[in-house]
């Protein structure tokens, strides 16, 4: 069996990464950048700046947040730094949360069913 400390540490690291993804997505400009990279993969910073009508410095800062969250992958081609959307962290979060809530809903329905059946049992007695 795994040591409890190890389990907690591994959880917190995954949760740290989830925090970074949620924080990165909690900004309209950054979501727009992801939309643009989805539509046109491999844009450089300059191309993104032109596309979004924003300041280079600001775009660069937002890109760093997206990179740190693993939502954008950078690839050097010669002297050009190209940016690609990495959808995996979004799918991971969607999976984890969707599954969590669908299980809760199923459990709630089962409880309701048990309660109703119990009441019905009382009524007929």
């Amino acid at each position, binding site marked *: 069996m795994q040591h409890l400390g*190890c389990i907690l*540490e*591994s959880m917190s*690291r*995954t949760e740290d*990464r989830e925090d970074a993804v949620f924080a990165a997505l909690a900004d309209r400009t950054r979501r727009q950048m992801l939309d643009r990279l989805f539509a*046109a*993969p*491999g844009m450089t910073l300059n191309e993104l700046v032109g596309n979004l009508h924003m300041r280079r410095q600001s775009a660069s800062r937002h890109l760093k947040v997206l990179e740190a969250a*693993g939502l954008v*992958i950078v*690839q050097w*081609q*010669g002297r*050009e730094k*190209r940016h*690609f959307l*990495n*959808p*995996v*962290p*979004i*799918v*991971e979060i*969607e*999976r*984890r949360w*969707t*599954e969590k809530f*669908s299980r809760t809903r199923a459990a709630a329905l089962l409880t309701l069913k048990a309660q109703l059946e119990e009441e019905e049992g009382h009524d007929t007695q």
Partner: protein
Amino acid sequence: MTRSEDATREQRFVTVIDAAGERVWEALTSPEFTCRYWHATRVRSSWQTGDPVEFLVEDGEVGCCGEVLESRPPEFLCYTWSFPGNPLVRHEPPSRVSFTLQTISDGRGASATRLTVIHDRFPEDSRMPEMVGPGWPLVLAGLKTLLETGRTPDYSSMT
């Protein structure tokens, strides 16, 4: 085709998994693992260079297949990729998939594995990118969930 157009046709996906590289490697190369997260397919290969790789669907038929180009456990795996099970791309020449596993440390003594999947060398006018593009994130998210929580993705809830 220009260099940047070429780059847009390459598909690249990254995930970080809280598991040792050896476990990630095992999950990528053994049927007992792949059937639990990789669209319920069972992978079959000796993983020797030049040998076939086959992904068997439930009825034992081959869905996707390829040929091992390079295998260096637990760091790098590369094979060609064909999809004879799909009429849309059945007759296309093979593309190429590679898996790069890097150990990363969080500085607190624990380590995780960064898995990078690159799918490239699509033939001209290939329909494969649109087909596998949405699929890889699901496979990788399923792999991460399985190795970190032991849970198998619920395919019925997927759209």
